Each structure stands twice: as structure tokens, then as C-alpha cells.
């Protein structure tokens, strides 16, 4: 069973600037949760606090707590690199390692950490991860070609395979389809739906149809004005957010009246 994520009163800063303020949210296990909202509302920043990627930006820091099945990811003795191995991430632009083969990209997590396994074990990891990412059929015959030889959609699925190869519990996706064409988007979306039984998935998206298609719950973020922190306005089952939102701002946004 994938874990639940409990975020309590979380603020995220860039230096003195507070980009996200007071987010409290419970992400349900084994579901897809979509974060939507206008540009600059802090949804990507918030996403990056869940695997402690926010703090690698100069000046990036966080207040509040993020708990994974009760364990505080910002606890005193927690190693952020261990957090990132448990909470995997897929980025906006497909970013396979350009100097590595498809095969090496999939096992990059282990390779980077210096984990040695027998070749047969690596072979298994590569095949099962690529199968789970719906990419095996397309690349099985050219595993030792560079990842850059794939199409954008294939590269993004390679990145998903790479993320799940280290067996994370959570998958974060930061606008994973925004650089892809509609066909590739469809492939990635159907993959997300397949993966949700094994991973708790949080996806940031600009595309409201996509949020409606893939997510079980939706969180709407907004920002009052430039220089103000982003806030979580409303969170609930996706159908409710899109048809019967409580807040006017949410209704305006999902109705296409702004943003």
C-alpha cells in the first residue's frame, strides 16, 4: 500500500520571499492528486517541498511539516537524499542523462549511488521498469542507444521508468506533459492511471482537462498578486472541484474565466 502524505501548515521561501504560505493538505494513498492554479501560484514550489528538492535552489527553505505515513520528512536526522529516493520526481521537460544509454538511464539511481548488483538483476530492473512505463516494446531492441535518440514522449516515459526503478513510494510529476504532443500526452496519462495503484501520485498541471482526466482529487492554488505568497484555496474530489466548487475563485478558474 503506498503511503499517505500529510502536510501541515507549510511555508516555502526563496530567501526572504515567501512563495507558498500555510498549506495544509492530506494526499490520499494510491490516488492521483492534481495541483492546479495560475502561473506563480506556488504549486510547483509546493510540489518540490514534498521531496525536499525546493531546498537545493539557492535561498530555498521550508517551514512546517510534511509527513509520509507519519514520518516527518523535515525531521532533524532525515537525510534529504534518502527522501528523494523514496519520493521520486518527473520534470516538465524530459531530462534523460544525455551521455547515458537507455539501459543506463533506467538504472541511473543505483549507478549514481554506487549500488552494485549482478547484471541479471539490473536486466530485470530495466525490463520491469520499462514495462511499467509502457516503453519496453518500443526500446527493447535498442537499450544501448543513447536516451536522446528517443522522441519527447518516449523520453518522458524513460524518465518515469528511471524514477520507478529505485522503487519509490510516491511519484511527483511537475507538468509532465507540457512539452509533449497530444499523442505522447495520452500515452503518459494512461500510464499515470496504471501507476496509481502502486504509488501515491501528485501531479502539477496547467491543463485542466488533464487534471479532470487523470486525478481523483484536485487542489486549487492561487496567488492574490505578484510578490504575494501562493495559497491553497480548495481541495477535494476532482468531480466536486470541477462542478461544485465552494469558492468563487475556484469556480472562476476551472470555468476558464481567468488564468
Amino acid at each position, binding site marked *: 500500500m503506498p503511503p499517505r502524505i500529510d502536510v501541515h501548515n507549510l511555508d516555502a521561501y526563496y530567501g526572504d520571499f515567501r512563495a507558498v504560505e500555510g498549506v495544509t493538505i492530506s494526499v490520499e494513498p494510491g490516488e492521483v492528486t492534481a495541483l492546479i492554479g495560475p502561473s506563480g501560484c506556488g504549486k510547483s514550489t509546493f510540489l518540490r517541498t514534498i521531496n525536499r*528538492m525546493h531546498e537545493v535552489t539557492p535561498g530555498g527553505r521550508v517551514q512546517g511539516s510534511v509527513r509520509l505515513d507519519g514520518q516527518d520528512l523535515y525531521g532533524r536526522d532525515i537525510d534529504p537524499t534518502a527522501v528523494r529516493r523514496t519520493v521520486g520526481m518527473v520534470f516538465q521537460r524530459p531530462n534523460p542523462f544525455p*551521455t547515458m544509454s537507455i539501459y543506463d538511464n533506467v538504472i541511473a539511481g543505483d549507478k549514481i549511488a554506487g549500488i552494485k548488483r549482478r547484471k541479471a538483476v539490473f536486466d530485470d530492473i530495466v525490463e520491469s521498469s520499462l514495462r511499467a512505463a509502457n516503453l519496453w516494446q518500443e526500446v527493447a531492441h535498442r537499450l544501448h542507444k543513447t536516451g536522446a535518440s528517443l522522441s519527447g514522449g518516449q523520453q518522458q516515459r524513460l524518465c518515469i521508468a528511471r524514477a520507478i526503478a*529505485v522503487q519509490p513510494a510516491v511519484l511527483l510529476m511537475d507538468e509532465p506533459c507540457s512539452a509533449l504532443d497530444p499523442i505522447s500526452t495520452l500515452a503518459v496519462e494512461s500510464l499515470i492511471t496504471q501507476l496509481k495503484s502502486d504509488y501515491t501520485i501528485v501531479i502539477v498541471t496547467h491543463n485542466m482537462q488533464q487534471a479532470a482526466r487523470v486525478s481523483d482529487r484536485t487542489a486549487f492554488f492561487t496567488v492574490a498578486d505578484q510578490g504575494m505568497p501562493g495559497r491553497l484555496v480548495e481541495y477535494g474530489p476532482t468531480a466536486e472541484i470541477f462542478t461544485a466548487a465552494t469558492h468563487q475563485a475556484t469556480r472562476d478558474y476551472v470555468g476558464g474565466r481567468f488564468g
Partner: protein
Amino acid sequence: MTEMTKIVAKAPSGKQAPLGPAVGGAFPGIRALPGAGRIGDRVFRTLTAGSGALVLVTMVAIGSYLVVAAWPALHANSGNLFTTQVWRPQADPPVFGIAAIAFGTVVSSLIAVVIGVPVAVGVALGVSQYLPRRWASVLGGLIDLLAAVPSLVFGMWGLYYLIPHTRGFQQWLSTYLGWIPIFRNRTATLTGQYGQSLLMAGIVLAIMIIPIVASICREVFARTPGPTIDAALALGATRWEVIRSAVLPFGRSGIASAAMLGLGRALGETIAVALVLSSGFTINWHLTELGGDTVASTIVLKFGEAGSSPVAIAALMLAGLCLFAVTLVVNATARLIVARKVATP
């Protein structure tokens, strides 16, 4: 005619190249291309093409001058240019060869690269990956400044400070690592008898090439694509693991070309080496022993005694020609590597 005046009036600059002939379509303002474009374009093109050509002409002129000037020496030489280890162009018959000095050049430059490049890569990694931004820019500026120090200063510092203070180090090398022939000094017994060796020349050269190599490496490392670094971080990489998996693979060819440029500088370095080395005209693999010479240092030291002897001067020209050819090849190779890097993103 009215159409044309309108167009000219609309154009931003006052001066206009003559417009091409009207092509007579629906829009009279759309005309055939004037032959050579506007005046600004023409001036700019001539200027850039001219500068480019000037560089080429200079290169060819230097090369062909050296060939012509060295020609008499090639005929007069009674030794073999590439194997003879003496330099007596004024003897009768003249006998000289670049074997020993080519050896000195290559070995001291290789020492410089072997010592200098790892240090420079380390400095560049520290500046681009570890230090906080403010300190990084200060240190980066200092490195660039170091690259601007005249080589004469390095030579004097090497001769009067570094060598006297590292005699003990050379003795230690010879005593404890002397079982490796290159470190063994067969003649010296006292600390004071160590000094102006090929090894020290290589170390001074290493210090001289560190700034340029570090500077290029820093640029290359700073251009590691952010998404690739993010990818490594998101997989749980530590800072060192990010460097190993993202920064170094991306910068590999950049490091190679920086090393080649450093090698090129070390090969051609003249005055620092001439100061640091005490002359010795044999191929000597014992790098801590005194003596040794490089092509460049020989040219600068022997010019005085060449006097008006045409053969002696021609012989030095010949040595210069060899150096010219070698550095040209090294630098061209470095550039080729860089160019290939740019072509494949």
C-alpha cells in the same frame, strides 16, 4: 515614383543603398534584392572577411617565413635533425638536432599537464559547484587575474623562491621514490645539489597553466544543463554524485580541450622555462637531476651567441618551425574537440 519616396521616408536610417529594380507586382514596395545589400551590411561584411583573412595570411606568412629562413640550416647540418643531441651550428661542419630539446619540451609540458589539469579541474569544480555564489565569483576573478600574470614573473618566482624552497622535496623524491628511475638523482648527495631540474620546470609550467585550464573548465561546468542536475538530485544524488553523474560527463570533452590548450601553452612557454632550467643538452630521464632544455628556451638562450652566423640563426629558425608545427597541431586538435562538442548538444 511616389511609392518609392514613401518607402525611403519610412526606413529608419537616413542613408539608403539604392533599391533594386521594381518587379512590378501588386505591391510596388516589394522589390528585387539590391545586389550587395545595404551599405552597412557591405561595410560590415568586408570588415569581418578582411579581419578573418588577415589572421589566415599572418599564419601562412609566419609558417612560410620560418620554412624559408630555416632552409639553409637543413642543408648545412651534418647531424640528424631529429636524433642529434648537440647544438653546434657554428662548428665546422655544423652539427645540431632537436632530440634533446624536443624531449625537454614534451616532458616538461607533460609534467605540467599531469600536475596542472587535475588541480585546475578541482579548482573549477570548487568554484562552480561547491562555493557559495559570492565567494565563487571572487575566486573565479582571481583565477582569471592569475592568467594575466606575465610568464617572466612566474619564472623569477620559480627560480628564486620555489626552487630553493623545494630542494628538500626533490631530495625526498629521489631518496624514497628513487627506485622509479624518473625520480632518481644519480649525482646529488646534498640537499643543496638539487634544484633546476626538468621536474621543477614542469611544476612551474603546471602553475602557469592552472589558471587558463581552470577558467575554461569553470565555464564548461557552469553550463551543465539544470534539468540534468535536477534529474540526478531527484534520484537521491549527493553533491559529489551529481558532479560524477552529471557535471563531469557533460564536461569531459571540455576538460580535454582545456588540457590541450594548457599543453599548447606549456609547449610554447619560453622565458619562465629558460630562467628555471640550467642548460643541459642530453635526453635525461632522471627528472630530478639538473639540466635539460626546451625548444623555446634554447631559441631564446642561443640567439645571443648565434651572432651573425647565418647557419646558427637558420638552425634556431628550424627549431622554431618545429615548435610552431607542434603547437599548431595541439591547438587545432583542442579546437576540433571543442567544435565537435558544440555540434552535438
